């Protein structure tokens, strides 16, 4: 059972440069837990105090997970999860 996770340039230091990695889980939170086991350090870049970081966008297929169920969003084999740091500033 594999879900493809697309990793942005800035986080590829955690994936040995890989643009996409596989992970598994029934929810986004489980998926990120599995990612952390395979690529230690990634979780902290995505989650802070039990919530998705405000300036990290995570998409399930074509949807922003904030409009789905956040970390509780169900994920399934064949899905693609994309991580993109928000482009923002002042």
């Amino acid at each position: 059972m594999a879900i493809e996770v697309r990793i942005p340039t800035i986080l590829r230091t955690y994936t040995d440069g890989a643009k996409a990695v596989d992970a598994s889980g029934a929810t986004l939170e489980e998926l990120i837990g599995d990612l952390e086991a395979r690529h230690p350090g990634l979780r902290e870049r995505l989650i802070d105090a039990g919530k998705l970081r405000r300036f990290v966008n995570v998409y399930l297929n074509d949807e922003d997970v904030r409009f789905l169920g956040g970390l509780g969003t169900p994920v399934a084999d064949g899905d693609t999860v994309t991580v993109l740091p928000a482009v923002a500033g002042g």
Partner: protein
Amino acid sequence: MLTISRELVDLIVAHAREDHPDEACGVIAGRDGVPERYIRMENAERSPTFYRFDSMEQFRVWREMDDRDEEPVVIYHSHTATEAYPSRTDISYASEPYAHYVLYSTELDQFRSFRIVDGVVEEEEVKILDVEG
């Protein structure tokens, strides 16, 4: 050094002036570090002191760049009351280590470019190419 065509500079400046006093933002996609395809983005914050790409628009644009083997060569935004130098928030949210961060100040008519990597800002020279005829 950022090498960029006059046409692209003019598009950035025009967008910044149009959205003034709110901050304007966008991307120039390209390959091998050459900025080519201008993409004007929505400032989801519609604010004079902050900008943020709309998350769905960013997703579409980033996927399109991926499909075309492009990268975000330039990420630009405007400052509307201060100089064209990265603010503390610009530095803390900068997340494209290979991008040229271009700032345009509508207040001072300044066009400047920076690299922002791991919280360190380095200004770089901007070379503007004028097309003949």
